[in-house]
Protein backbone atom coordinates (compact mmCIF):
# COMPACT_ATOMS: atom_id res chain seq x y z
CA UNK A 1 0.00 0.00 0.00
CA UNK A 2 1.14 3.51 -0.74
CA UNK A 3 2.86 5.37 2.04
CA UNK A 4 1.30 8.78 1.48
CA UNK A 5 3.32 10.37 4.27
CA UNK A 6 6.53 9.36 2.48
CA UNK A 7 5.25 11.09 -0.65
CA UNK A 8 4.47 14.22 1.38
CA UNK A 9 7.95 14.20 2.90
CA UNK A 10 9.63 13.73 -0.44
CA UNK A 11 7.70 16.54 -2.05
CA UNK A 12 8.66 18.83 0.84
CA UNK A 13 12.25 18.26 -0.27
CA UNK A 14 11.33 19.12 -3.84
CA UNK A 15 11.81 15.54 -4.98
CA UNK A 16 8.89 13.76 -6.67
CA UNK A 17 8.72 9.95 -6.51
CA UNK A 18 8.46 9.11 -10.23
CA UNK A 19 6.00 6.29 -9.69
CA UNK A 20 3.19 8.67 -8.68
CA UNK A 21 2.57 9.25 -12.40
CA UNK A 22 1.29 5.72 -13.00
CA UNK A 23 0.81 3.91 -9.70
CA UNK A 24 -2.63 2.25 -9.29
CA UNK A 25 -2.58 2.61 -5.47
CA UNK A 26 -1.87 6.32 -5.75
CA UNK A 27 -4.74 6.58 -8.22
CA UNK A 28 -7.11 4.90 -5.76
CA UNK A 29 -6.04 7.33 -3.06
CA UNK A 30 -6.66 10.21 -5.45
CA UNK A 31 -10.13 8.86 -6.18
CA UNK A 32 -11.02 8.56 -2.51
CA UNK A 33 -9.21 11.40 -0.79
CA UNK A 34 -8.93 14.02 -3.51
CA UNK A 35 -11.75 13.63 -6.06
CA UNK A 36 -14.04 12.36 -3.30
CA UNK A 37 -14.17 15.86 -1.85
CA UNK A 38 -12.44 18.42 -4.09
CA UNK A 39 -14.26 21.08 -6.09
CA UNK A 40 -14.21 19.65 -9.61
CA UNK A 41 -15.23 21.65 -12.69
CA UNK A 42 -18.13 20.21 -14.69
CA UNK A 43 -19.39 22.88 -17.11
CA UNK A 44 -19.74 26.56 -17.85
CA UNK A 45 -23.23 28.01 -17.51
CA UNK A 46 -23.13 29.24 -21.12
CA UNK A 47 -23.16 25.60 -22.25
CA UNK A 48 -26.74 25.28 -20.97
CA UNK A 49 -28.29 28.69 -21.76
CA UNK A 50 -31.99 27.68 -21.99
CA UNK A 51 -34.38 25.61 -19.87
CA UNK A 52 -33.91 21.91 -20.67
CA UNK A 53 -30.38 22.36 -22.07
CA UNK A 54 -28.06 19.75 -20.68
CA UNK A 55 -24.55 18.37 -20.96
CA UNK A 56 -23.31 15.15 -19.37
CA UNK A 57 -19.99 15.31 -17.55
CA UNK A 58 -17.99 13.04 -15.30
CA UNK A 59 -16.04 13.22 -12.09
CA UNK A 60 -13.84 10.16 -12.63
CA UNK A 61 -16.39 7.34 -13.00
CA UNK A 62 -19.42 9.28 -11.77
CA UNK A 63 -21.63 10.51 -14.60
CA UNK A 64 -23.58 13.73 -13.98
CA UNK A 65 -26.30 15.47 -15.97
CA UNK A 66 -25.77 19.24 -15.80
CA UNK A 67 -29.16 20.65 -16.78
CA UNK A 68 -31.01 23.96 -16.60
CA UNK A 69 -34.46 23.19 -15.24
CA UNK A 70 -37.73 24.82 -16.31
CA UNK A 71 -37.27 27.46 -13.61
CA UNK A 72 -33.82 28.41 -14.94
CA UNK A 73 -31.84 26.77 -12.12
CA UNK A 74 -28.80 24.76 -13.19
CA UNK A 75 -28.87 21.38 -11.47
CA UNK A 76 -26.43 18.52 -11.38
CA UNK A 77 -27.98 15.04 -11.13
CA UNK A 78 -26.18 11.74 -10.73
CA UNK A 79 -26.94 9.97 -14.01
CA UNK A 80 -28.27 6.72 -12.57
CA UNK A 81 -31.87 5.55 -12.39
CA UNK A 82 -33.12 5.01 -8.82
CA UNK A 83 -34.66 1.70 -9.83
CA UNK A 84 -32.09 -0.54 -11.56
CA UNK A 85 -29.21 1.86 -12.05
CA UNK A 86 -29.38 2.46 -15.78
CA UNK A 87 -28.05 5.78 -17.08
CA UNK A 88 -31.14 7.88 -17.67
CA UNK A 89 -29.29 10.07 -20.17
CA UNK A 90 -27.03 8.46 -22.74
CA UNK A 91 -26.38 11.51 -24.91
CA UNK A 92 -23.72 14.07 -24.01
CA UNK A 93 -25.58 17.23 -25.06
CA UNK A 94 -29.16 18.18 -25.88
CA UNK A 95 -32.39 19.61 -24.56
CA UNK A 96 -34.99 17.67 -22.60
CA UNK A 97 -37.90 18.37 -20.29
CA UNK A 98 -37.65 14.82 -18.94
CA UNK A 99 -35.16 11.98 -18.80
CA UNK A 100 -36.71 8.58 -19.28
CA UNK A 101 -34.86 5.43 -18.33
CA UNK A 102 -34.85 3.06 -21.33
CA UNK A 103 -34.83 -0.04 -19.10
CA UNK A 104 -38.24 0.10 -17.33
CA UNK A 105 -39.45 3.57 -18.22
CA UNK A 106 -39.08 5.54 -15.02
CA UNK A 107 -39.05 9.18 -16.03
CA UNK A 108 -37.67 12.23 -14.26
CA UNK A 109 -38.33 15.93 -14.75
CA UNK A 110 -35.25 17.94 -15.63
CA UNK A 111 -35.22 19.26 -12.05
CA UNK A 112 -34.61 15.66 -10.96
CA UNK A 113 -38.03 14.81 -9.51
CA UNK A 114 -39.51 11.42 -10.40
CA UNK A 115 -42.42 12.22 -12.72
CA UNK A 116 -43.82 8.81 -13.45
CA UNK A 117 -43.26 5.11 -13.81
CA UNK A 118 -45.17 2.42 -15.71
CA UNK A 119 -47.82 0.46 -13.83
CA UNK A 120 -47.33 2.54 -10.71
CA UNK A 121 -50.66 1.33 -9.25
CA UNK A 122 -50.35 -2.32 -10.36
CA UNK A 123 -46.71 -2.80 -9.47
CA UNK A 124 -46.31 -0.67 -6.35
CA UNK A 125 -49.83 -0.03 -5.12
CA UNK A 126 -49.40 3.59 -6.19
CA UNK A 127 -47.84 6.15 -3.87
CA UNK A 128 -48.31 3.83 -0.93
CA UNK A 129 -45.57 1.47 -2.13
CA UNK A 130 -43.54 4.08 -3.96
CA UNK A 131 -44.27 7.71 -3.09
CA UNK A 132 -43.22 9.54 -6.23
CA UNK A 133 -42.82 12.90 -4.55
CA UNK A 134 -40.10 11.52 -2.30
CA UNK A 135 -37.94 10.30 -5.16
CA UNK A 136 -35.54 12.30 -7.26
CA UNK A 137 -32.31 11.65 -9.10
CA UNK A 138 -29.45 11.85 -6.65
CA UNK A 139 -28.15 15.40 -6.67
CA UNK A 140 -24.43 16.17 -6.61
CA UNK A 141 -23.82 16.84 -2.89
CA UNK A 142 -22.66 20.41 -3.52
CA UNK A 143 -22.81 22.61 -6.62
CA UNK A 144 -21.36 26.11 -6.70
CA UNK A 145 -20.36 28.54 -9.43
CA UNK A 146 -17.84 31.28 -9.87
CA UNK A 147 -17.97 33.52 -12.96
CA UNK A 148 -20.27 30.96 -14.59
CA UNK A 149 -17.86 28.08 -13.99
CA UNK A 150 -19.83 25.27 -12.33
CA UNK A 151 -18.10 22.98 -9.90
CA UNK A 152 -19.32 20.00 -7.89
CA UNK A 153 -18.00 18.49 -4.72
CA UNK A 154 -18.84 14.90 -3.86
CA UNK A 155 -18.49 15.73 -0.16
CA UNK A 156 -21.43 17.18 1.75
CA UNK A 157 -19.16 19.32 3.90
CA UNK A 158 -15.99 21.25 3.38
CA UNK A 159 -14.80 24.65 2.30
CA UNK A 160 -17.07 26.59 -0.03
CA UNK A 161 -15.93 27.04 -3.62
CA UNK A 162 -14.97 30.65 -2.87
CA UNK A 163 -12.94 29.55 0.13
CA UNK A 164 -11.26 26.91 -2.00
CA UNK A 165 -10.40 29.28 -4.85
CA UNK A 166 -9.23 32.00 -2.45
CA UNK A 167 -7.05 34.72 -3.91
CA UNK A 168 -6.65 32.88 -7.20
CA UNK A 169 -9.89 34.68 -8.04
CA UNK A 170 -7.78 37.73 -8.93
CA UNK A 171 -6.03 35.82 -11.73
CA UNK A 172 -9.10 33.79 -12.67
CA UNK A 173 -10.99 37.00 -13.45
CA UNK A 174 -8.42 37.95 -16.09
CA UNK A 175 -9.75 34.97 -18.08
CA UNK A 176 -13.37 34.78 -17.00
CA UNK A 177 -14.43 38.36 -16.34
CA UNK A 178 -13.23 40.53 -19.22
CA UNK A 179 -16.61 42.27 -19.10
CA UNK A 180 -19.59 42.10 -16.80
CA UNK A 181 -21.28 39.80 -19.33
CA UNK A 182 -18.65 37.13 -18.67
CA UNK A 183 -17.56 34.27 -20.87
CA UNK A 184 -19.19 32.14 -23.49
CA UNK A 185 -17.53 28.81 -24.15
CA UNK A 186 -17.58 26.47 -27.15
CA UNK A 187 -16.76 22.82 -27.26
CA UNK A 188 -15.28 20.90 -25.71
CA UNK A 189 -12.95 19.02 -27.95
CA UNK A 190 -12.40 15.70 -26.22
CA UNK A 191 -9.57 13.28 -26.68
CA UNK A 192 -7.79 10.63 -24.63
CA UNK A 193 -4.09 10.60 -24.03
CA UNK A 194 -2.01 7.85 -22.42
CA UNK A 195 -0.73 10.18 -19.76
CA UNK A 196 -1.31 10.71 -16.05
CA UNK A 197 -3.70 13.58 -15.32
CA UNK A 198 -1.35 15.37 -12.91
CA UNK A 199 1.26 16.16 -15.55
CA UNK A 200 -1.00 18.56 -17.43
CA UNK A 201 -2.10 20.29 -14.23
CA UNK A 202 1.52 20.72 -13.14
CA UNK A 203 2.65 21.93 -16.52
CA UNK A 204 0.02 24.67 -16.70
CA UNK A 205 0.46 25.73 -13.09
CA UNK A 206 3.97 27.00 -13.61
CA UNK A 207 6.22 25.41 -16.19
CA UNK A 208 7.65 28.44 -18.00
CA UNK A 209 10.92 26.54 -18.30
CA UNK A 210 9.60 24.11 -20.94
CA UNK A 211 8.56 26.79 -23.44
CA UNK A 212 11.92 27.46 -25.14
CA UNK A 213 12.54 23.73 -25.62
CA UNK A 214 9.16 22.03 -26.08
CA UNK A 215 7.62 24.83 -28.12
CA UNK A 216 10.65 25.81 -30.16
CA UNK A 217 8.99 24.81 -33.44
CA UNK A 218 6.14 27.25 -32.87
CA UNK A 219 8.63 30.05 -32.33
CA UNK A 220 10.63 28.92 -35.40
CA UNK A 221 7.65 29.38 -37.71
CA UNK A 222 6.67 32.79 -36.36
CA UNK A 223 3.26 31.72 -35.13
CA UNK A 224 3.94 33.10 -31.70
CA UNK A 225 4.02 36.85 -31.20
CA UNK A 226 6.96 36.64 -28.85
CA UNK A 227 9.93 36.13 -31.18
CA UNK A 228 12.30 34.83 -28.52
CA UNK A 229 11.23 31.93 -26.37
CA UNK A 230 13.71 32.93 -23.68
CA UNK A 231 11.53 35.99 -23.00
CA UNK A 232 9.54 33.49 -20.98
CA UNK A 233 11.95 33.95 -18.05
CA UNK A 234 11.00 37.62 -17.73
CA UNK A 235 7.49 36.70 -16.66
CA UNK A 236 6.36 36.18 -13.09
CA UNK A 237 5.05 32.96 -11.66
CA UNK A 238 2.34 33.40 -9.06
CA UNK A 239 0.52 31.09 -6.66
CA UNK A 240 -2.50 32.30 -4.69
CA UNK A 241 -5.29 30.37 -2.96
CA UNK A 242 -5.82 27.13 -4.87
CA UNK A 243 -4.22 28.16 -8.13
CA UNK A 244 -1.05 29.27 -9.77
CA UNK A 245 0.09 30.28 -13.18
CA UNK A 246 2.50 31.90 -15.56
CA UNK A 247 2.65 35.33 -17.13
CA UNK A 248 4.52 37.20 -19.83
CA UNK A 249 6.28 40.50 -19.30
CA UNK A 250 4.89 42.94 -21.84
CA UNK A 251 6.81 45.80 -23.50
CA UNK A 252 6.59 49.25 -21.85
CA UNK A 253 3.25 51.02 -22.09
CA UNK A 254 0.08 51.77 -20.19
CA UNK A 255 -2.92 49.47 -19.74
CA UNK A 256 -4.41 50.32 -23.14
CA UNK A 257 -1.13 49.94 -25.00
CA UNK A 258 -0.33 46.62 -23.37
CA UNK A 259 -3.81 45.21 -24.01
CA UNK A 260 -3.45 46.34 -27.65
CA UNK A 261 -0.06 44.63 -27.83
CA UNK A 262 -1.67 41.24 -27.20
CA UNK A 263 -4.39 42.05 -29.74
CA UNK A 264 -7.45 43.30 -27.86
CA UNK A 265 -9.60 45.87 -29.72
CA UNK A 266 -10.27 49.14 -27.92
CA UNK A 267 -13.88 48.40 -26.99
CA UNK A 268 -12.84 45.16 -25.25
CA UNK A 269 -10.04 47.01 -23.48
CA UNK A 270 -12.49 49.56 -22.09
CA UNK A 271 -14.88 46.85 -20.92
CA UNK A 272 -12.03 45.00 -19.21
CA UNK A 273 -10.88 48.22 -17.53
CA UNK A 274 -14.40 48.70 -16.17
CA UNK A 275 -14.93 45.07 -15.15
CA UNK A 276 -11.57 44.40 -13.53
CA UNK A 277 -10.53 45.41 -10.04
CA UNK A 278 -7.88 48.14 -9.72
CA UNK A 279 -5.36 45.41 -8.83
CA UNK A 280 -6.15 43.45 -11.99
CA UNK A 281 -5.79 46.57 -14.14
CA UNK A 282 -2.56 47.50 -12.36
CA UNK A 283 -1.06 44.04 -12.90
CA UNK A 284 -1.21 44.68 -16.65
CA UNK A 285 -0.98 48.46 -16.81
CA UNK A 286 1.59 49.22 -14.09
CA UNK A 287 3.43 45.93 -13.55
CA UNK A 288 3.29 44.86 -17.21
CA UNK A 289 2.41 41.18 -16.65
CA UNK A 290 -0.19 39.34 -18.76
CA UNK A 291 -1.65 36.03 -17.65
CA UNK A 292 -0.71 33.01 -19.75
CA UNK A 293 -1.17 29.41 -18.50
CA UNK A 294 -2.70 28.59 -15.10
CA UNK A 295 -4.19 25.74 -13.07
CA UNK A 296 -6.88 25.84 -10.43
CA UNK A 297 -6.36 22.84 -8.17
CA UNK A 298 -6.96 20.06 -8.89
CA UNK A 299 -7.54 19.68 -12.62
CA UNK A 300 -8.87 22.78 -14.38
CA UNK A 301 -6.36 24.75 -16.43
CA UNK A 302 -6.47 27.97 -18.42
CA UNK A 303 -4.60 29.33 -21.40
CA UNK A 304 -4.30 32.87 -22.69
CA UNK A 305 -2.01 33.39 -25.64
CA UNK A 306 -1.69 35.76 -28.60
CA UNK A 307 -0.44 34.24 -31.86
CA UNK A 308 -0.14 35.80 -35.31
CA UNK A 309 -3.09 34.53 -37.28
CA UNK A 310 -2.30 35.67 -40.83
CA UNK A 311 0.49 36.63 -43.20
CA UNK A 312 0.17 40.29 -42.21
CA UNK A 313 1.15 39.42 -38.66
CA UNK A 314 -2.21 40.27 -37.10
CA UNK A 315 -2.06 39.33 -33.42
CA UNK A 316 -5.21 37.90 -31.84
CA UNK A 317 -5.53 36.62 -28.27
CA UNK A 318 -7.54 33.58 -27.26
CA UNK A 319 -8.63 31.89 -24.05
CA UNK A 320 -9.06 28.18 -23.47
CA UNK A 321 -10.28 26.18 -20.49
CA UNK A 322 -9.16 22.62 -20.22
CA UNK A 323 -9.82 19.82 -17.84
CA UNK A 324 -7.53 16.87 -17.18
CA UNK A 325 -10.14 14.22 -16.46
CA UNK A 326 -8.56 11.10 -14.97
CA UNK A 327 -9.55 7.85 -16.68
CA UNK A 328 -6.96 5.55 -15.12
CA UNK A 329 -3.48 5.94 -13.62
CA UNK A 330 -2.09 6.05 -17.15
CA UNK A 331 -4.89 7.63 -19.18
CA UNK A 332 -6.51 11.07 -19.19
CA UNK A 333 -9.39 12.52 -21.14
CA UNK A 334 -8.62 16.08 -22.12
CA UNK A 335 -11.62 18.38 -22.46
CA UNK A 336 -10.67 21.64 -24.11
CA UNK A 337 -13.04 24.58 -24.54
CA UNK A 338 -12.58 27.78 -26.50
CA UNK A 339 -13.73 30.74 -24.40
CA UNK A 340 -14.36 34.36 -25.32
CA UNK A 341 -15.94 37.35 -23.70
CA UNK A 342 -19.62 37.38 -24.53
CA UNK A 343 -19.57 41.06 -25.54
CA UNK A 344 -16.58 40.73 -27.88
CA UNK A 345 -17.25 41.80 -31.49
CA UNK A 346 -18.21 38.92 -33.80
CA UNK A 347 -15.11 39.46 -35.95
CA UNK A 348 -12.94 39.15 -32.84
CA UNK A 349 -14.72 35.95 -31.79
CA UNK A 350 -14.08 34.45 -35.23
CA UNK A 351 -10.40 35.29 -35.30
CA UNK A 352 -9.86 34.33 -31.66
CA UNK A 353 -11.41 30.92 -32.38
CA UNK A 354 -9.01 30.42 -35.31
CA UNK A 355 -6.10 31.42 -33.09
CA UNK A 356 -7.20 28.84 -30.51
CA UNK A 357 -7.46 26.04 -33.07
CA UNK A 358 -3.99 26.72 -34.42
CA UNK A 359 -2.35 26.79 -30.98
CA UNK A 360 -4.20 24.59 -28.48
CA UNK A 361 -6.68 21.76 -28.31
CA UNK A 362 -6.63 18.41 -30.10
CA UNK A 363 -4.83 19.78 -33.16
CA UNK A 364 -3.08 22.78 -31.58
CA UNK A 365 0.53 23.27 -32.55
CA UNK A 366 1.63 24.08 -29.00
CA UNK A 367 -0.31 21.30 -27.38
CA UNK A 368 0.87 18.58 -29.80
CA UNK A 369 4.37 18.60 -28.39
CA UNK A 370 3.21 18.87 -24.76
CA UNK A 371 1.25 15.64 -24.97
CA UNK A 372 4.17 13.78 -26.56
CA UNK A 373 6.18 14.54 -23.40
CA UNK A 374 3.43 13.57 -21.01
CA UNK A 375 2.74 10.22 -22.66
CA UNK A 376 6.41 9.37 -22.54
CA UNK A 377 6.76 10.30 -18.83
CA UNK A 378 3.75 8.21 -17.89
CA UNK A 379 4.95 5.19 -19.79
CA UNK A 380 8.44 5.12 -18.33
CA UNK A 381 7.22 5.82 -14.77
CA UNK A 382 5.68 2.33 -14.51
CA UNK A 383 8.81 0.27 -14.07
CA UNK A 384 11.06 -0.90 -11.28
CA UNK A 385 13.74 1.70 -11.89
CA UNK A 386 11.20 4.53 -11.72
CA UNK A 387 10.43 3.37 -8.15
CA UNK A 388 14.02 4.24 -7.29
CA UNK A 389 14.03 7.63 -8.96
CA UNK A 390 12.93 10.84 -7.35
CA UNK A 391 12.47 13.56 -9.96
CA UNK A 392 14.31 16.77 -9.25
CA UNK A 393 11.73 19.50 -8.87
CA UNK A 394 13.92 21.90 -6.88
CA UNK A 395 14.28 24.67 -9.40
CA UNK A 396 14.55 28.04 -7.69
CA UNK A 397 16.08 26.65 -4.48
CA UNK A 398 19.68 26.64 -3.27
CA UNK A 399 21.06 23.55 -1.52
CA UNK A 400 20.19 25.32 1.75
CA UNK A 401 16.58 25.66 0.55
CA UNK A 402 16.85 29.40 0.10
CA UNK A 403 14.85 30.95 -2.72
CA UNK A 404 16.91 31.99 -5.72
CA UNK A 405 13.94 33.88 -7.15
CA UNK A 406 12.90 36.53 -4.67
CA UNK A 407 9.28 37.60 -4.38
CA UNK A 408 8.55 40.71 -6.43
CA UNK A 409 8.11 43.75 -4.18
CA UNK A 410 5.14 45.95 -5.00
CA UNK A 411 3.50 43.45 -7.37
CA UNK A 412 -0.20 44.24 -7.70
CA UNK A 413 -1.53 40.68 -7.47
CA UNK A 414 -2.07 38.53 -4.36
CA UNK A 415 -0.08 35.47 -3.33
CA UNK A 416 3.56 34.76 -3.94
CA UNK A 417 5.01 36.12 -7.17
CA UNK A 418 8.50 35.47 -8.47
CA UNK A 419 10.24 36.45 -11.69
CA UNK A 420 12.08 33.83 -13.70
CA UNK A 421 12.27 30.08 -14.02
CA UNK A 422 11.46 28.11 -10.90
CA UNK A 423 9.28 25.25 -9.65
CA UNK A 424 7.74 26.90 -6.61
CA UNK A 425 4.32 26.57 -8.27
CA UNK A 426 4.67 22.89 -9.08
CA UNK A 427 5.82 22.25 -5.51
CA UNK A 428 2.87 24.25 -4.18
CA UNK A 429 0.45 22.27 -6.35
CA UNK A 430 2.05 18.96 -5.37
CA UNK A 431 1.95 19.94 -1.70
CA UNK A 432 -1.82 20.43 -1.90
CA UNK A 433 -2.15 17.16 -3.82
CA UNK A 434 -0.02 15.12 -1.41
CA UNK A 435 -1.70 16.49 1.70
CA UNK A 436 -5.03 15.28 0.28
CA UNK A 437 -3.49 11.84 -0.22
CA UNK A 438 -2.14 11.78 3.32
CA UNK A 439 -5.66 12.46 4.53
CA UNK A 440 -4.54 15.22 6.84
CA UNK A 441 -5.44 18.88 6.72
CA UNK A 442 -4.84 20.28 3.26
CA UNK A 443 -1.70 22.30 3.34
CA UNK A 444 -2.08 25.60 1.61
CA UNK A 445 1.19 27.23 0.85
CA UNK A 446 -0.37 30.63 0.33
CA UNK A 447 -3.41 30.82 2.55
CA UNK A 448 -6.37 33.11 2.12
CA UNK A 449 -6.03 36.82 2.42
CA UNK A 450 -4.28 39.42 0.32
CA UNK A 451 -0.56 39.87 0.43
CA UNK A 452 0.49 43.04 2.17
Amino acid at each position, binding site marked *: MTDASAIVASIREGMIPAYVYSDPDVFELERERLFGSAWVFVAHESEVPSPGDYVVRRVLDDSFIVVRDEGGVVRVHFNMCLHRGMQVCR*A*EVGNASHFRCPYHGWSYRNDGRLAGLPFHQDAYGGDDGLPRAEHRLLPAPRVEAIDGLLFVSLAADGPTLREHVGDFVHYLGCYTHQSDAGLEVRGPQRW*RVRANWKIGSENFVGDMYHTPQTHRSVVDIGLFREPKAHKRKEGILYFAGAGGGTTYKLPPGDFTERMRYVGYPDDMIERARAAWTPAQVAMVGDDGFMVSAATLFPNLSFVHNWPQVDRDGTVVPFISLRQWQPVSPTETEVLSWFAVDRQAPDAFKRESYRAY*LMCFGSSGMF*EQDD*VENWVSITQVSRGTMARRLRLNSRMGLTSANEAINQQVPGFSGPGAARVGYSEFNQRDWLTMWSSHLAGGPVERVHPLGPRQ
Partner: protein
Amino acid sequence: MTGYEPSLPFDDSRHLAAHRFLVEEAAILDFGDWARWLDLLTDDVRYVMPVRVTTVRDTGYDTRADMAHFDEDRYALEKRVQRLLTDHAWTEDPRSRTRHLVTNVRCFPGEDGDDGAAGTVRAESSLLLFRSRGDTRDAEYVCALRRDVLRPGSDGYQLARRHITVEESVLRTQNLAVFL
Protein backbone atom coordinates in the same frame (compact mmCIF):
# COMPACT_ATOMS: atom_id res chain seq x y z
CA MET B 1 -26.67 14.03 -42.47
CA THR B 2 -27.57 14.20 -46.14
CA GLY B 3 -29.59 11.43 -47.68
CA TYR B 4 -28.46 8.79 -50.10
CA GLU B 5 -27.39 9.97 -53.55
CA PRO B 6 -26.26 7.57 -56.31
CA SER B 7 -22.67 8.12 -57.36
CA LEU B 8 -21.03 8.33 -60.77
CA PRO B 9 -20.30 4.93 -62.39
CA PHE B 10 -16.91 3.63 -61.33
CA ASP B 11 -15.69 3.67 -64.94
CA ASP B 12 -16.61 7.33 -65.39
CA SER B 13 -13.44 9.29 -66.21
CA ARG B 14 -14.22 11.79 -63.44
CA HIS B 15 -14.50 9.02 -60.86
CA LEU B 16 -11.28 7.46 -62.06
CA ALA B 17 -9.40 10.76 -61.88
CA ALA B 18 -10.80 11.67 -58.46
CA HIS B 19 -10.07 8.22 -57.05
CA ARG B 20 -6.51 8.44 -58.34
CA PHE B 21 -6.16 11.87 -56.73
CA LEU B 22 -7.20 10.51 -53.32
CA VAL B 23 -4.90 7.50 -53.52
CA GLU B 24 -1.93 9.61 -54.63
CA GLU B 25 -2.65 12.12 -51.86
CA ALA B 26 -2.66 9.30 -49.30
CA ALA B 27 0.73 8.12 -50.58
CA ILE B 28 2.15 11.65 -50.31
CA LEU B 29 0.90 11.97 -46.72
CA ASP B 30 2.27 8.56 -45.73
CA PHE B 31 5.64 9.47 -47.24
CA GLY B 32 5.55 12.62 -45.10
CA ASP B 33 5.99 14.80 -48.16
CA TRP B 34 3.92 17.60 -46.66
CA ALA B 35 5.28 20.36 -48.91
CA ARG B 36 4.05 18.39 -51.92
CA TRP B 37 0.72 17.91 -50.16
CA LEU B 38 0.31 21.70 -49.95
CA ASP B 39 0.66 21.83 -53.75
CA LEU B 40 -2.51 19.76 -53.99
CA LEU B 41 -4.57 22.45 -52.24
CA THR B 42 -6.26 25.47 -53.82
CA ASP B 43 -5.42 28.93 -52.46
CA ASP B 44 -8.93 29.19 -51.02
CA VAL B 45 -8.90 25.70 -49.50
CA ARG B 46 -11.12 25.01 -46.48
CA TYR B 47 -10.26 22.04 -44.29
CA VAL B 48 -12.79 21.34 -41.56
CA MET B 49 -13.20 18.56 -39.01
CA PRO B 50 -16.08 19.30 -36.63
CA VAL B 51 -16.29 17.84 -33.13
CA ARG B 52 -18.68 14.89 -33.14
CA VAL B 53 -21.12 14.52 -30.27
CA THR B 54 -23.45 11.82 -28.99
CA THR B 55 -27.05 13.06 -29.17
CA VAL B 56 -30.46 11.41 -29.05
CA ARG B 57 -31.91 10.63 -32.47
CA ASP B 58 -34.38 13.45 -32.86
CA THR B 59 -31.92 16.16 -31.80
CA GLY B 60 -31.18 16.99 -35.41
CA TYR B 61 -27.40 17.24 -35.10
CA ASP B 62 -24.50 15.02 -34.17
CA THR B 63 -21.64 17.44 -34.72
CA ARG B 64 -20.99 20.69 -32.91
CA ALA B 65 -21.81 23.63 -35.15
CA ASP B 66 -19.35 25.96 -33.46
CA MET B 67 -16.40 23.76 -32.50
CA ALA B 68 -14.04 21.77 -34.66
CA HIS B 69 -10.78 19.88 -34.35
CA PHE B 70 -9.64 21.56 -37.57
CA ASP B 71 -11.12 24.67 -39.20
CA GLU B 72 -8.32 25.70 -41.49
CA ASP B 73 -7.53 28.00 -44.35
CA ARG B 74 -4.36 27.84 -46.41
CA TYR B 75 -2.39 30.02 -43.96
CA ALA B 76 -3.14 27.69 -41.06
CA LEU B 77 -2.30 24.56 -43.07
CA GLU B 78 0.94 26.14 -44.29
CA LYS B 79 1.90 26.92 -40.70
CA ARG B 80 1.25 23.31 -39.70
CA VAL B 81 3.44 22.06 -42.54
CA GLN B 82 6.16 24.61 -41.78
CA ARG B 83 6.16 23.40 -38.20
CA LEU B 84 6.47 19.74 -39.16
CA LEU B 85 9.41 20.69 -41.39
CA THR B 86 11.36 22.30 -38.51
CA ASP B 87 13.84 20.20 -36.55
CA HIS B 88 11.82 20.74 -33.36
CA ALA B 89 8.39 19.23 -33.97
CA TRP B 90 8.95 16.67 -31.25
CA THR B 91 5.61 14.91 -31.51
CA GLU B 92 6.60 13.78 -35.03
CA ASP B 93 10.28 13.13 -34.27
CA PRO B 94 10.62 10.17 -34.32
CA ARG B 95 7.97 10.08 -37.05
CA SER B 96 4.73 8.24 -36.64
CA ARG B 97 4.33 5.38 -39.03
CA THR B 98 1.02 6.13 -40.72
CA ARG B 99 -1.14 4.44 -43.27
CA HIS B 100 -4.06 6.30 -44.79
CA LEU B 101 -6.47 3.58 -45.93
CA VAL B 102 -8.87 5.24 -48.38
CA THR B 103 -11.88 3.25 -49.51
CA ASN B 104 -15.58 3.43 -50.47
CA VAL B 105 -14.83 6.25 -52.92
CA ARG B 106 -18.00 7.72 -54.42
CA CYS B 107 -18.02 10.72 -56.75
CA PHE B 108 -20.66 13.19 -57.84
CA PRO B 109 -20.51 15.83 -60.56
CA GLY B 110 -20.32 19.49 -59.60
CA GLU B 111 -20.39 21.36 -56.33
CA ASP B 112 -23.67 21.83 -54.51
CA GLY B 113 -26.02 23.62 -56.86
CA ASP B 114 -23.99 23.44 -60.06
CA ASP B 115 -24.03 20.81 -62.77
CA GLY B 116 -20.30 20.19 -62.93
CA ALA B 117 -19.81 21.94 -66.28
CA ALA B 118 -16.65 23.54 -64.85
CA GLY B 119 -15.27 20.09 -64.16
CA THR B 120 -15.64 20.22 -60.38
CA VAL B 121 -16.21 16.90 -58.65
CA ARG B 122 -17.35 16.02 -55.18
CA ALA B 123 -15.60 12.96 -53.85
CA GLU B 124 -16.69 11.07 -50.76
CA SER B 125 -14.34 8.57 -49.17
CA SER B 126 -13.96 6.50 -46.01
CA LEU B 127 -10.67 6.91 -44.24
CA LEU B 128 -9.01 4.73 -41.65
CA LEU B 129 -5.80 6.28 -40.41
CA PHE B 130 -3.44 3.87 -38.66
CA ARG B 131 -0.75 5.60 -36.59
CA SER B 132 2.04 3.79 -34.78
CA ARG B 133 4.57 5.52 -32.55
CA GLY B 134 7.58 4.01 -30.82
CA ASP B 135 7.87 0.37 -29.83
CA THR B 136 5.64 -0.01 -26.78
CA ARG B 137 2.57 2.10 -27.36
CA ASP B 138 -0.69 0.78 -28.71
CA ALA B 139 -1.40 1.87 -32.26
CA GLU B 140 -3.94 4.66 -32.70
CA TYR B 141 -6.75 4.80 -35.24
CA VAL B 142 -8.90 7.59 -36.59
CA CYS B 143 -11.90 6.60 -38.69
CA ALA B 144 -13.75 9.22 -40.70
CA LEU B 145 -15.94 10.03 -43.67
CA ARG B 146 -14.39 12.69 -45.90
CA ARG B 147 -16.40 14.86 -48.27
CA ASP B 148 -14.14 16.69 -50.68
CA VAL B 149 -14.57 19.20 -53.46
CA LEU B 150 -11.98 18.72 -56.21
CA ARG B 151 -11.42 21.41 -58.80
CA PRO B 152 -9.52 21.00 -62.04
CA GLY B 153 -6.20 22.90 -61.93
CA SER B 154 -3.35 23.27 -64.39
CA ASP B 155 -1.96 19.89 -63.32
CA GLY B 156 -4.99 17.78 -62.48
CA TYR B 157 -7.38 18.14 -59.57
CA GLN B 158 -6.80 20.34 -56.54
CA LEU B 159 -8.49 19.99 -53.18
CA ALA B 160 -10.74 23.01 -52.57
CA ARG B 161 -12.77 21.74 -49.61
CA ARG B 162 -12.51 18.86 -47.20
CA HIS B 163 -15.14 18.15 -44.59
CA ILE B 164 -14.12 15.38 -42.20
CA THR B 165 -16.81 13.62 -40.18
CA VAL B 166 -14.90 11.71 -37.54
CA GLU B 167 -16.70 8.71 -36.06
CA GLU B 168 -15.47 9.17 -32.49
CA SER B 169 -16.74 11.85 -30.14
CA VAL B 170 -13.66 11.32 -27.96
CA LEU B 171 -10.58 10.90 -30.11
CA ARG B 172 -8.21 8.15 -29.09
CA THR B 173 -5.10 9.65 -30.54
CA GLN B 174 -2.68 11.78 -28.57
CA ASN B 175 -3.02 14.70 -30.96
CA LEU B 176 -3.83 15.61 -34.53
CA ALA B 177 -0.28 16.24 -35.71
CA VAL B 178 -1.41 14.41 -38.83
CA PHE B 179 -3.56 15.30 -41.82
CA LEU B 180 -6.62 13.26 -42.61
